[in-house]
């Protein structure tokens, strides 16, 4: 790959999930930059590491603060956030500025497909097609990447 690999921040309070996700990111050709378990860590690391993408769980070590994290790192650092949560229906309608969501439980293959898809979207500025199975784009990013609004449920 001649492009710079995506630098990815993992925001997840389950250590085992985060560890496995780190391996998955490497297999997918991404560069895991770090792992935050709480909202304050996540925001600080986003400032310091300037990731291209942040994978954000909604429930973190300090409570259901993932939505706030997504909004802050998007607004303050321009980081593209992707939620990874079992509570897809609880996300705000505007996805708090995040580009979309992968529902838990996800499969390794599902995450890799989503990463490859997002990599193209972010590099080209245009989606190569509809989001892969298991992933939903936010209305704002669907428009940004040239797709009409998608229904919330996949």
């Amino acid at each position: 790959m001649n492009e710079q690999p995506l630098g990815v921040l993992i925001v997840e309070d389950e250590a085992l999930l985060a560890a496995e996700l780190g391996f998955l990111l490497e297999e997918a050709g991404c560069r895991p930059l770090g792992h935050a378990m709480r909202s304050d860590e996540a925001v600080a690391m986003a400032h310091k590491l300037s990731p291209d993408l942040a994978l954000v769980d909604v429930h973190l070590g300090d409570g259901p603060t993932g939505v706030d994290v997504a909004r802050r790192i998007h607004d303050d650092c321009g980081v593209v956030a992707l939620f990874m949560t079992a509570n897809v229906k609880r996300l705000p309608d505007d996805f708090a500025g995040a580009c979309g969501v992968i529902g838990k439980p996800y499969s390794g293959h599902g995450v890799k497909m989503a990463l490859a898809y997002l990599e193209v979207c972010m590099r080209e500025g245009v989606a190569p097609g509809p989001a892969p199975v298991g992933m939903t784009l936010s209305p704002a990013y669907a428009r940004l990447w040239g797709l009409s609004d998608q229904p919330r449920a996949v």
Partner: protein
Amino acid sequence: MLRNRNSRPDRALWPAGIADGGSGRHMTDNSQSLRAAEALASGHGSEDPFAAAIRADRMATIITDATQADHPIVFANDAFLRLTGYGRDEVIGRNCRFLQGVDTDPLERARLRAAISAGQDITCELLNYRKDGSTFWNALYLSPVHDGHGAITHFIGSQLDISDKKRLELQWNERQNSLEQLVADRTRDLTQALEQKTTLLHEVDHRVKNNLQLISSLLLLQNRRVSDPAVKDALRGMLERVNAIATVHRRLFQSEDVERFDVSAFVRDLVSDMMGSSARTDILFRLDLERVDVAASKAAPLALIVNELLSNALRHGFPHGQPGQIFVGIGRINGDFRIEIADDGVGMPNAAKSSGFGLTIIQLLCQQLKARCETSDAQPGTRVVIHLPINAAHP
């Protein structure tokens, strides 16, 4: 009953015998009312049967003089005196508002005043006060009496004690209100209970999904550590099974109906995932999926069976990079759900020994679902058909 609306004055009833009241102690101009009362009475002596009827009527009746300021009472029959507890000399010359008190509805009083100023008849219900201070509900019917030129000379008012009816009405309203309150309270309680249950359901769903994610992460992490191909294979098999159950859970709560499970939608998800993770681009999948719903309780066992069959076909049907095709068909036939998974691979006798554990899982779960599993030679390849009785799918 005397309802002299629009009656001509010459046909109006001027009762007599009211001159015995009026001692002059109520008002300074009482004498004028007394004169008016006498004038009224003089035209309607004891020989007047209509006047006699009003005097003896059980309906409380008064007549007021509309030509005087503040319309004083110039006649009150015995029934009126019995109803209110006043003596005749205490009412003649007074405006009848002395019957009203603090709890008399001001709106109803305003309506009465408006009707009198407009010279119209009116029916109203007023809380009135007796001489002893006790109250009664008065259904008042008031109508004007005109002279030959159409000018109003008197008002005639009849009073009916409707306290019993009012009490029943109040009781009824109270009962109605308390019932409505009861229903509102109950509805609020139930709504709250439902919200709590829904929150709990979401919480449990959330935990189930997170735990499934955790289990699959554990298996993946261990799989990265071991090097023995047999152990890797076993772990991968377990991971696929956990993924199949995880896919079921993702699907289960996506739909509004948590009782039913769409098997075809599940198979579409599972095939896409398996196809992707196998990295076997040389194997084509062909799907013929009719929407088939089963009870949610059957979803996981059915998903595990489909997973084993697909995994078998994918792993053992096409060894050494042999290309081919896997067909998955779901539909209804003769009252059964029919799930077919067929490959055009090397076929059973030539396939590498498939996992004994996988076959055990299929056998056990078919038994559990009361399903029939038929394996045949697809020439080339293998065809497995699962027949699931509809009554087993819909318990």
